[in-house]
C-alpha cells in the first residue's frame, strides 16, 4: 500500500503541534482586522489577545485558502510519490474546500498514478478536528486511503456540533447565519443554542434564558444524541470562557461519566465569526 497524507485546513481548530503529531498537514485560512490591511495567518495571534480585541469592538474579516496555495502544497506531496486525502472545512461556510477540490482536479491530470481524494467535512472547528482525529485513527489502524476516505464521508454525518454563543451579532455580521434564523438574540439574557446541519450550515435551533441554561442545554443534547455516552470522544472549543468549559465538563462527567478528550480555543478564523463567549461541544452521535 502506498503511503498517503491526510491533509486539512486550519478551520479544524486543532493546534499545529497536535496536527503534526497526528501526521496531518494543513494550510491556514487568513484574517485581518477591518481597520488595517495587515493580514494574519490563522493562529498567528494568541487567541486570548484576539478575543480581547474583539471584546473591545475590533471586527475581523476572514479569507479562504485559494486554489493556488493548495496546488502548490498538494504538488509537493504528490511529487514525493505520496497519495493525498484532503478533508476540508464545510463548503456551507467557506470556499476553502472548493479551492482544495479544484487544486486536486487539476493535479489529477499531472499525477495520473497518484490517488487523490477530497472529502467535504461539512464540519467546522473542532467538529472538523474530531473528524480528522477519527480518520487518523483509522489510518493508524491500517485503513487504506479508499477506506479512510469512505470512513470520513460516512462519519461526517454523525459529527454533532452543538454550541452556544454569547451574542449572535458576530454570526449575523459575518453572514454565517441566515437573518431569518437569527431570531431574537438580543433580548436580555436570551441565549441561542445552535448546531450544524447535514449541509454544513449553522442553524439556530432554540433559545434558552441565561448562559447557565445554554451550557447545560449542550449537555442535554449530548445525552440525547451521543452514541457512546461514557466512552465516546468529546471535544470542546471555546471563545475565551474557561469557567463555562469547566461547568460543561462537570455536567458531562456527573451525568454521563463522559470524559472530554480535548479542550481548545476556537481559533481566530472561526472565532472571528462566532465571537468571544462561544462554547461548542463536539461528539459522535446517532445523527447531527
Amino acid at each position, binding site marked *: 500500500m502506498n503511503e498517503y497524507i491526510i491533509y486539512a485546513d486550519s478551520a479544524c481548530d486543532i493546534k499545529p503541534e497536535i496536527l503534526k503529531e497526528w501526521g496531518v498537514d494543513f494550510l491556514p485560512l487568513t484574517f485581518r482586522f477591518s481597520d488595517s490591511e495587515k493580514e494574519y495567518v490563522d493562529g498567528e495571534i494568541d487567541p486570548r489577545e484576539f478575543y480581547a480585541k474583539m471584546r473591545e469592538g475590533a471586527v475581523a474579516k476572514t479569507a479562504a485558502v485559494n486554489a493556488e496555495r493548495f496546488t502548490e502544497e498538494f504538488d509537493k506531496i504528490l511529487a514525493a510519490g505520496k497519495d493525498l486525502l484532503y478533508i476540508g472545512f464545510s463548503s456551507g461556510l467557506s470556499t476553502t474546500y472548493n479551492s482544495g477540490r479544484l487544486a486536486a482536479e487539476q493535479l489529477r491530470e499531472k499525477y495520473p498514478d497518484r490517488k487523490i481524494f477530497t472529502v467535504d467535512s461539512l464540519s467546522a472547528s473542532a467538529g472538523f478536528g474530531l473528524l480528522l482525529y477519527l480518520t487518523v485513527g483509522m489510518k493508524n489502524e491500517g485503513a487504506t486511503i479508499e477506506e479512510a476516505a469512505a470512513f470520513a464521508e460516512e462519519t461526517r454525518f454523525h459529527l454533532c456540533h452543538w454550541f452556544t454563543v454569547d451574542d449572535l451579532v458576530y454570526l449575523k455580521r459575518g453572514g454565517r447565519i441566515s437573518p431569518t434564523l437569527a431570531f431574537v438574540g438580543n433580548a436580555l439574557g436570551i441565549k441561542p443554542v445552535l448546531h450544524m446541519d447535514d449541509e454544513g450550515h449553522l442553524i439556530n435551533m432554540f*433559545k434558552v434564558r441565561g448562559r447557565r441554561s445554554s451550557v447545560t442545554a449542550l449537555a442535554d443534547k449530548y445525552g440525547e444524541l451521543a452514541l457512546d455516552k461514557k466512552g465516546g470522544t468529546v471535544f470542546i472549543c471555546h471563545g475565551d470562557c474557561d469557567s463555562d468549559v469547566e461547568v460543561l465538563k462537570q455536567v458531562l462527567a456527573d451525568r454521563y461519566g463522559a470524559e472530554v478528550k480535548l479542550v481548545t480555543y476556537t481559533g481566530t478564523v472561526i472565532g472571528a465569526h462566532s465571537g468571544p463567549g462561544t462554547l461548542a461541544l463536539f461528539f459522535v452521535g446517532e445523527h447531527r
Partner: protein
Amino acid sequence: MFKPGKGETPAPKKKITVKTVSSDKKSADKKSKPRKSQGKKKDSRDIKYLTGWLMSKMAKGGAKLLRSNADKVNKLNVFPVPDGDTGDNMRMTIESGIAAIENLDTDDLAEVMRVFSHGMLLGARGNSGVILSQFFAGTAKGFEGAVEADPYTLGRALQMGVKQAYASVMTPTEGTILTVAREAVDYATSKITPSSTIRTFFADFVGEMHESLERTPEALAVLKEAGVVDSGGAGLLYIMEGFNKVLNGEEDAEDDTASVPAPTHAAKAAAVSSSFGPDSKMEYGYCTELLIQLMRDKTDIDAFDVEPLKEFLSGIGNSIVAFKTDSIVKIHVHTFEPEKVLAHCREFGEFLAVKIENMSVQHTETEGAEPAPEIPVEKKKYGVVAVTNGPGIRDMFIEMGADQTIEGGQTSNPSTNDFLEAFGKIHAECIFVFPNNGNIFMAASQAAKFYTDAKVVVIPSKDVGTGYVALTAADLSGDDPDAIAEEMKAAMQNVTSGYISPAVRDAEMDGVKIRKGDTIGIMGKKIVLSDPDMRCAAYRLAVKLLEEPDKFMLTVFRGAGTTEEDQEDLRKCLEENCPSAEVYFVDGGQEIYPYIFTAE
C-alpha cells in the same frame, strides 16, 4: 377597624325619592326620565317591586357612595405598601355601568340591569372590579324577562349573581367580596316573607353584609394579620349602602350624576336641556377632557410621567383620570378652573381634542376624538398585548415583539374595555396577552372571552418580570398557539420574583418587623426582610433570590424612584459577592417598586 359610615340600618325616611309602582301603573311611568324628588313621604311597605327606573336610581346612589369612599377602600391593603387600588377599580367599574344606563329611557328592570351590567363588564378593572361586574351580570341574568321584581325574584337573581361571581374566580377564596356577597344574599333571602318589601329586603341584606365584612378577618388569615377587613367586600358594602340610601330617600342620587363620565353615544348632543341660565350658580364645575399630543420640543416624551400632572390636577379638581399612551396623554378632571388645566397642559404638548362641559347643564356629548386606530395590512399569525408600567418596560416589551402595550400596573389597572381596544388594533389570528399583574389577569380574561375576531390567550404573568421571561422564552414561529402558551407558562414556572417597596405603616408580617418608612423585600408573596436602607434592602433581597435552589440569573428592573447610582451600587455589590451570577439590568421606570427582580 373599618366603619362603613352611616346608614347601616334603615334610618327614618325624611323624603322618598322613589315612586311606588304597581304593575298596572307601569305604562304611566314609561316617560319617567329621572326627576327630582317630590319630597313625598311614603311608607316603606309601599315598595313592593324593584323597577328598572328605581334600579337605575339605586345604581347611581351606589356609585356615588363608593366614589366618595374609594380612598378608604384603597387603604384596606393587606401589605403595608402604597399600592392599594381596590376602591378605584370598583369605582371605575361601576361608573362604566352608570355611563351605560345614563341615557337609557326604560323602566324595564331586566333591560336596565342588562345594560348596566354589560357596561360594568366592559369597564371592569382589578380583580374586585371583575368580580363585581360578574356579580351584577349574574344578577341581571336572574332578572331576565322581568320588567320588575318582588323580593323573591330579587333574592333569586342575587343568588345567581353570587353563583356567577364565584364561577368567575379560578380558586374562590373565602373571607373576600365573594363571602360577603354570598352571606348577605343568603341571609336576606332567608328572611323573605310575604309581607317583605324591597326595602326590608335591602335592610336585611345590607345589615348582614356589614356583619359579614367584619367577619372577613376571621376567615382569611392575611386580613387578620394586617388588621384590615377585605377591601373588595368593603367596596361592595358601600355600593349596597348607596342603594339603601336611595331606597330610604336619604340621598338624592341625581345630584351627582354629572360626575359620571359622559357616555360615548353620539347624536345625543341635541338633547340639551338648558338648566343653566343667567342667574344660575356655578355649582358643579366643568367636566374637562383633553387629548394631548406631547411635543418633542416641549418635553422629553419618553420620560414624561403623568404623576406630577395628576398631582397638579388634584390641586384644582377631582375625579381625575390621566394616562399616557405612547406620545398621547388623555386627561379627565372635574374642575372650576378649566383654563388652568389648558394652560398647564400646553407646557408640554398641544391639544388633539378638547372637551369642556358645564356639569350643571344636563346634556351629553360625544367624547373627544380618539386617535384613529392604525389599519393593519395583513393578518399575521400571532399578536402580543402587554400591560406595562414605565417607559423602559414598555420599550422592552415592544422590542420583544409586543404589538400593543397598555399602560397600567398595581395602582392603575386597565379595564376589560382597554384590552378590547388593544385587541382591536391588532390584526392577528391569535393574540397573547400578558397582564403582568395578578390584579389585571381577570379583566384580561374577561376581555378574552368577549373578543371574537381572534383567539386570545391570556398568559397569567403576575409581574412585568415574569411576563418578560415568558415572552422571551417562547418561540413565536410555531404553529400551535396552545403549545406556545405552554412553553411560556413553563418558563414562568422557573421564575421567582422579588419586589422592593416602601412600607407605609408599622406592621409585623411573616415574622418580619416592619417600621413605617422602611424598605421591605417581598419574595413571591412573602415579606422576607425589612431594612431602613433601600439599597441594603435591594441587595439583601437580590442575594436571597440567588440563594434559592437552581437560580443563576437575575434580571433587575429599576423603578422610577431609583437613581443610576443606586443601580451601580447594587451591581458592584453583586459582582463582588455573587460573581457566578448572571445579572441583567433594565431601566424599567415602573412606579411603586424601586426594584423588581426575577430570578431564574
